[in-house]
């Protein structure tokens, strides 16, 4: 038993009492043996002996904490202001840190996560893609030192016991998926190599844990039951472990299915597993390194394989896009994530901004504590006079600071607990919901604690130093007007407010840039009524396998639907496009320029008549497609955009039959072609305006628009666009019903407006701008409190002086100016530091911010000017009341007090 434990036991009251009794007995017995007076003061000896059991340090600290709580409780307004400031600062930081922790660092709950890695292909343009099944096979069999697994995503219809259920997110996994991750089932078994042999031969399903809990209430008897998935009967064979949310951060699959079942689950032009013509890169690869192998080694080996394997390129069958693709290998310890790619940068930027908020809050609390310390000088003086050491007084003030910080951190943690999911909801508005495991872990708790302690020490250090230098001679002396009079007293408070202004300037400049760049992104010709355009993705039966045989049938389905939708009351125009204006461009054609030379790749799309009218892009030359162009066997006609005219045609007159019809002599250009159809000249009938939709940062590439039947592609899915005249919501059900009525084999995507799409596309920017804006407002609120406090303090301190001035004939405006001048001086000093600091910070972070800013530089002069004006205005407002009070000072009263 160590001394520590013995002392700990002596903290128990009954043990302490027994020890006390024992000691008294012993001392009595000893006193009985000794001569009177021989042993000296026995009471003192007992006192010193008792101290040996004690926890002097701890007891003193407990005393300090108690005392701090008592004094803070006696100043509720001060305490509330301080705790609130800190709660906002610490809460914001903790919420962001929780998100960063979840998205970036939480390890996959799998065995040996640090040996997992993920592969992706990076095109020269910087896009990264997944892999085709054929590529996966090559890498799997390459012997590159990797145990490789793949997974693909599908959204599937579910039917249990004859009843339709909500659609589910499904992961299509290869046999090695669960073994590579080293997972153990929560019930039944997981999928393995035996479920990865025959195409369409393994109708087995593993349920995701949360789905199992939600739908089946965790019933283990579910193993062996049947469920119908995408029209196919599947047997449930097991349940994935509880802590496993899938390998993709932010997505929680409801069900895991064998990849060999793909033809039933992801309709396509044949099967993605066997048809070498299909080039959909639908798989994510995840692998486990062999012991001793490193990530760079694996990357080099795989790249060598990818670069030299002629077979890889041949089976890839999409020359032009992947020829120059590079294989990149990452650690997959924390899972695969689009979310991480999309949000890691913004989250760190926001953590920086919220760090500024916390600093401002600390300065505010420090300032409040200083003001209190000034009024408590006599108390500190008294304590020093009574024999407290300076260290003890300092410690007490620091403890007070830490108590405040802890209260702030506790409130902040509650705020963060509530705010982190709210942030996720805001960021995922309009998207497939993002599922994150936001439960705070040790990292988050450690972060919050560290932040609280650092904040407490930071803001309490100045007051603590001052308290320690309180003068013994001031003991008990009363200070009217709350504080000392020496000039130096103004120093720390003023400095803190100047620092606050400087920090706010940096923060406001940053916030201004984010808000302005969001505004720039939203600026678009038709953006005023984007919410009047309803968008519905359509995948009629057979559209995933479009061929010459079923194209006419699909076209008929589409035109039929268009006619019905157009006849609905309230519909201004309706059309179909291959994708929405914000959707990915999925078609491309090699095209020979008029000047000749090698073919270049031009992006393309398929549209029906009135498409441009519906989404709000004007046709600047020529005409739209008409019903005539839709006929089978109509002359080949295309529309192009201005970028096409500029870049491909070199500015030549685009319209008419001049280029197209007579192009075979080599002077004109040859239109859309691919391996299936010979090159054939086409006729440009119209030119549409280049349109940068909000959220699309790049100016649009040259585009060719074709009609459905004339386009040669394996994709038959289209997106319905409907422009409605009035408020969109009333008509949505009717449109949804019509769209649902078409014969389809996959679940229908949700119905939304173009505004929703813009919001999704701008999720990052909106999140950053909204949070930075909120932080900016919080900073302004904090700073007005700080400035107001300082000005009020100054006015009360200078009451006598102002009284004399008034007595000597100072006018009201000159008194007002006296106060205003000081406030402006502080803001001026703050700006003199803050604006250059913002400029330097902007320069230093220019590269990191580039992807978040649009049409704004990170050292935007307008944002700086606006921040300066706003801060000056805040200073003016904050000094208004104190100035008013100064004006009302009665010289007679003021001088009498003096």
């Amino acid at each position, binding site marked *: *038993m*160590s*001394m520590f434990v*013995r*002392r700990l036991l002596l903290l128990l009251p009954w043990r302490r009492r027994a020890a006390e009794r*024992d*000691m008294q*007995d*012993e*001392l009595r*017995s*000893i006193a*009985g*043996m*000794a001569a009177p007076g*021989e*042993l*000296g*003061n*026995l009471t*003192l*000896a*007992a006192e*010193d*002996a008792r*101290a*040996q*059991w004690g926890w002097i340090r701890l007891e003193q600290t407990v005393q300090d904490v108690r005392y701090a709580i008592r004094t803070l409780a006696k100043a509720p307004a001060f305490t509330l202001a301080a705790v609130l400031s800190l709660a906002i600062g610490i809460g914001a930081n903790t919420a962001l840190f929780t998100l960063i922790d979840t998205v970036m660092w939480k390890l996959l709950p799998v065995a040996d996560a640090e040996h997992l890695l993920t592969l992706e292909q990076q095109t020269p343009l910087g896009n990264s893609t997944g892999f085709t099944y054929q590529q996966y096979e090559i890498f799997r069999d390459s012997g590159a030192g990797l145990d490789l697994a793949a997974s693909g995503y599908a959204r599937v219809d579910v039917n249990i016991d004859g009843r339709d259920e909500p659609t589910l997110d499904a992961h299509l996994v290869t046999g090695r998926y669960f073994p590579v991750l080293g997972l153990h089932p929560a019930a039944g078994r997981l999928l393995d190599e035996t479920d990865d042999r025959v195409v369409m031969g393994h109708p087995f399903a593993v349920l995701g844990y949360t789905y199992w809990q939600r739908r089946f209430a965790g019933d283990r008897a579910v193993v062996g039951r049947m469920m119908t998935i995408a029209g196919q009967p599947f047997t449930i064979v097991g349940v994935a472990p509880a802590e496993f949310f899938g390998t993709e951060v932010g997505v929680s699959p409801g069900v895991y299915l064998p990849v060999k079942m793909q033809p039933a689950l992801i309709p396509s032009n044949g099967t993605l597993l066997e048809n070498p013509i299909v080039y959909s890169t639908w798989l994510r690869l995840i692998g486990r390194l062999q012991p001793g192998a490193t990530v760079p080694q694996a990357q080099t080996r795989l790249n060598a394989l990818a670069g030299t394997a002629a077979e890889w390129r041949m089976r890839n069958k999409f020359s032009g896009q992947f020829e120059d693709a590079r294989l990149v290998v990452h650690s997959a310890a924390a899972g695969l994530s689009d979310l991480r790619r999309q949000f890691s940068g913004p989250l760190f930027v926001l953590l920086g901004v919220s760090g500024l908020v916390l600093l401002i809050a600390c300065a505010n609390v420090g300032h409040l504590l200083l003001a209190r310390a000034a009024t408590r000088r006599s108390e500190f003086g008294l304590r020093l006079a009574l024999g407290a050491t300076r260290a003890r007084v300092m410690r007490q003030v620091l403890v007070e600071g830490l108590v405040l910080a802890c209260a702030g951190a506790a409130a902040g943690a509650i705020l963060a607990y509530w705010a982190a999911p709210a942030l996720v909801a805001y960021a995922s508005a309009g998207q497939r919901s993002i599922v994150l495991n936001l439960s705070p872990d040790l990292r988050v708790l450690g972060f919050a604690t560290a932040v609280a302690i650092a904040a407490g020490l930071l803001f309490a250090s100045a007051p603590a130093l001052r308290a320690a230098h309180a003068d013994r001679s001031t003991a008990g002396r009363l200070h009217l007007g709350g504080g000392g009079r020496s000039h130096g007293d103004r120093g720390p408070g003023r400095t803190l407010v100047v620092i606050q202004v400087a920090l706010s300037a940096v923060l406001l400049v940053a916030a201004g840039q984010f808000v302005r760049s969001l505004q720039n992104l939203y600026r678009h010709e038709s953006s005023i009524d984007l919410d009047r355009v309803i968008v519905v993705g359509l995948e009629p039966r057979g559209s995933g396998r479009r061929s010459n045989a079923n194209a006419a049938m699909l076209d008929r389905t589409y035109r039929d639907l268009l006619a019905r939708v157009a006849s609905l009351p309230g519909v201004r125009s309706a059309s179909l496009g291959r994708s929405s204006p914000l959707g990915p461009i999925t078609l491309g054609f090699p095209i020979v320029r008029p000047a000749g030379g090698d073919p270049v790749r031009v992006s393309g799309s398929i549209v029906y008549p009135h498409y441009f009218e519906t989404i709000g892009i004007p046709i600047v030359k020529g005409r739209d497609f008409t019903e005539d162009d839709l006929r089978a066997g109509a002359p080949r006609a295309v529309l192009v955009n201005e970028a096409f005219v500029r870049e491909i045609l070199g500015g030549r007159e685009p319209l008419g039959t001049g280029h197209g019809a007579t192009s075979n002599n080599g002077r004109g250009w040859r239109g859309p072609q691919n391996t299936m159809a010979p090159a054939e000249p086409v006729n440009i009938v119209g030119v549409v305006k280049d349109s940068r939709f909000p959220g699309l940062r790049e100016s649009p590439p040259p585009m060719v628009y074709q009609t459905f039947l004339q386009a040669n592609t394996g994709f038959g899915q289209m997106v319905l666009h409907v422009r409605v005249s009035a408020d969109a919501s009333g008509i949505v059900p009717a449109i949804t019903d019509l769209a649902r009525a078409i014969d389809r084999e996959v679940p229908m995507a949700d119905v939304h407006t173009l505004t929703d799409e813009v919001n999704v596309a701008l999720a990052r920017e909106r999140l950053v701008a909204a949070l930075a804006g909120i932080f900016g407002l919080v900073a302004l609120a904090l700073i007005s409190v700080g400035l107001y406090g300082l000005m009020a303090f100054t006015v009360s301190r200078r009451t006598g002086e102002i009284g004399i001035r008034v007595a000597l004939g100072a006018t009201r405006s000159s008194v007002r100016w006296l106060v205003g001048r000081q406030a402006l001086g502080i803001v001026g000093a703050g700006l003199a530091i803050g604006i250059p600091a913002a400029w330097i910070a902007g320069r230093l972070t220019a590269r990191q911010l580039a992807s978040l800013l649009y049409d704004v530089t990170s050292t935007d002069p307008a944002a700086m000017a606006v921040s300066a004006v706003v801060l000056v205005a805040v200073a003016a407002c904050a000094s208004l009341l104190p100035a008013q009070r100064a004006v009302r000072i009665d010289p007679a009263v003021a001088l009498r007090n003096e």
Partner: protein
Amino acid sequence: MEPLYGVLDMLVLRTLLFGPQHGYAIAKSLRDGSDAAITIEFGSLYPALKRLELKGWIASKWETSEHNRRAKVYRLTPDGRKKLNQERSEWAGFVQAVARIMNPAEE
């Protein structure tokens, strides 16, 4: 003369080396053993006993003496014995070092 800081512990442990004693006996033997050259106030000794007990170097027990008097008797624990040996060699080293400085000529 008051003993040096830390020496008191060593002296108490040494006193108990010959057998268990109660508090007053320890005080007396310390005074007698040093021919009153070192005065150890009971006010210093008693807290030291409590400290050594907490550290686990001595242990105490109530016993009834031959005069039918109850007294709390302290004895050395094995840990205390180890500690005493260590302190003793450290003390010897210290004394030698001081002696070398004080009487350099004798070297």
